[in-house]
């Protein structure tokens, strides 16, 4: 999968050009344009129904757009590929395999020439990375939601994908475990070399701010980009200080107000249509 290293000064990351996607005639995403720099952490933030999961599935190659172009490092996306690993909300692991077997399967796909002994050792290492050393022989149903998601992250790292696509991966977790796994994700992401490109779908504003370099705000019906915001807080980020800082509060409020504005715009647009209809 690894071709020539990009010789351009800034390695092109994920590119989305004029992408439209409809599901059985209903527009889901409308003229999406987005550039995601390689090695950055980007959140797709929006209310339910804004098509953020669909956009992630397009990036994964699980869906293909009706029009427009998606590319990774200049190469158009034609389907799923091992250079883009995915963590789903709650079903990334096969329930009939132990954690270790799930990770070993990814390792076997990433390097078909490796032998079982090598894969065993590597699986233990990747599971150790997410703090699951003692649970390698457990089946997913024996694990908490947080442990399953840590296992899913370990599996994606085992795939060796330079791009990590995450679809509300922590949405089902309680706040404490959620905070812990966010910190874990940031730690292993900043430890990855070269640094992985992460696209993280969430509807939680604070989660998006805490994790991201760039927040892409999506509005709904149909899904479209309403604003992109750089998050300039230095890394490594300290949760305690960050959430108390006025800058954090200001950014949160700015995002909140932008979504409120979008909502009001849509209500106005609808009532315009309604009053026009009443005039007929």
């Amino acid at each position, binding site marked *: 999968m690894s071709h020539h290293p990009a010789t351009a000064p800034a390695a092109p990351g994920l590119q989305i050009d004029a992408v439209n996607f409809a599901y059985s005639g209903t527009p889901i995403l409308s003229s999406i344009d987005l550039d995601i720099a390689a090695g950055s952490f980007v959140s797709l933030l929006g209310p339910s129904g804004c098509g953020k999961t669909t956009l992630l599935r397009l990036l*994964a*190659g*699980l869906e293909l757009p009706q029009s427009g172009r998606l590319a990774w490092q200049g190469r158009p996306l034609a*389907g*799923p*590929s*091992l250079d*883009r*690993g*995915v963590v*789903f909300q709650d*079903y*990334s692991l*096969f*329930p*009939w395999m132990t954690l270790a077997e799930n990770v070993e*399967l*990814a390792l076997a*796909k990433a390097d078909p020439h490796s032998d079982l002994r090598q894969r065993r050792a590597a699986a233990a290492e990747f599971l150790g990375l997410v703090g699951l050393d003692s649970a390698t022989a457990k*089946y*997913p*149903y024996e694990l908490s939601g947080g442990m399953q998601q840590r296992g899913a992250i370990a599996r994606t790292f085992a*795939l060796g994908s330079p791009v990590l696509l995450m679809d509300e991966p922590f949405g089902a977790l309680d706040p404490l475990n959620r905070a812990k796994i966010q910190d874990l994700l940031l730690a292993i992401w900043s430890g990855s070399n070269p640094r992985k490109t992460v696209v993280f779908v969430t509807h939680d504003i604070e989660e998006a701010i805490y994790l991201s370099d760039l927040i892409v705000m999506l509005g709904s019906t149909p899904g479209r980009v309403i604003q992109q915001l750089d998050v300039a807080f230095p890394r490594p980020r300290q949760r305690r200080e960050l959430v108390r800082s006025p800058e954090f509060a200001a950014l949160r409020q700015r995002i909140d107000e932008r979504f409120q504005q979008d909502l009001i715009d849509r209500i106005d647009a609808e009532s315009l249509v309604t009053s026009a209809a009443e005039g007929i």
Partner: protein
Amino acid sequence: MSTLSSAAAPLPRTSVSASSAQAASIAAPATVGAPFRPWRLLHGREGAVFLLALLALWLVVSTGLSFSGSYLFPSPWASLKALWISLPELLKGTASSFLILVPGYLLAVVAGIAWGLLVGTVPALHRLFSAFSRLASPIPPTIYIPYAIALLPSFRTAAGFIVFIGAFWPIFLNTAAGAGALPQRYRDNARILGLHGAEYLRRVVFPAALPHIFSGLSVGLVFSFIMLTVAELFGASAGLGRFIQLYADYADYPRMVAGILYTSVIVLLTTGLLEHVRRRSLFWVR
């Protein structure tokens, strides 16, 4: 939410009635005038009571009544005695029957699962085979018996073939349905990991379809026994069905009933074994 509450509903109801039944049986002697409801004592034991009632009916019909056909109803004691006497012959018959059943059934398991996974996964194969399968699967396999006996070199191969046909369709149909209904999440995961072909079938489709496959296996097993015993009635020189047929012909009804009881136990043990394997294999299904 709705599935959750409907699944949870029977539990409190049973526990409430169980505890009230308990309360009634404890409180009944002490509380004067409390209505005595003996049927509450039956709660949870209905199945055993029904079996005892059947046994009592058998006893009454076979020993208490005297009518022109009463020799057709041997008493439980006579039947048990016949069972004890015939045990060596029945064991030999079991071996003979299983020599037909096991190869026929196992062949159906392998063919039904492999072909079912392919037909459930590859749309072109589904289009190729579904018309034939809809046509052929509802045909009662018993109608092939005379032809199979005429066509195949020995009774054993003919009976094995009939067992195979009887077991194949339920196994194939359930496997194909399970593979065809593969949840989107497993398909997504397999595509993300780049799983294709045989590896995809073996590591994803097969385990995901296992709950369906096991329903097919148990229906197929029951069908195998039916096909086997029917085939043995036609032309076997040994076997369980042959045993029952033989003693019915001799009008030795205690032995015939013993054969029926023995065969039931063998079927129960075999299906119980399969159920055990099912529980062990599907540990991950919650």
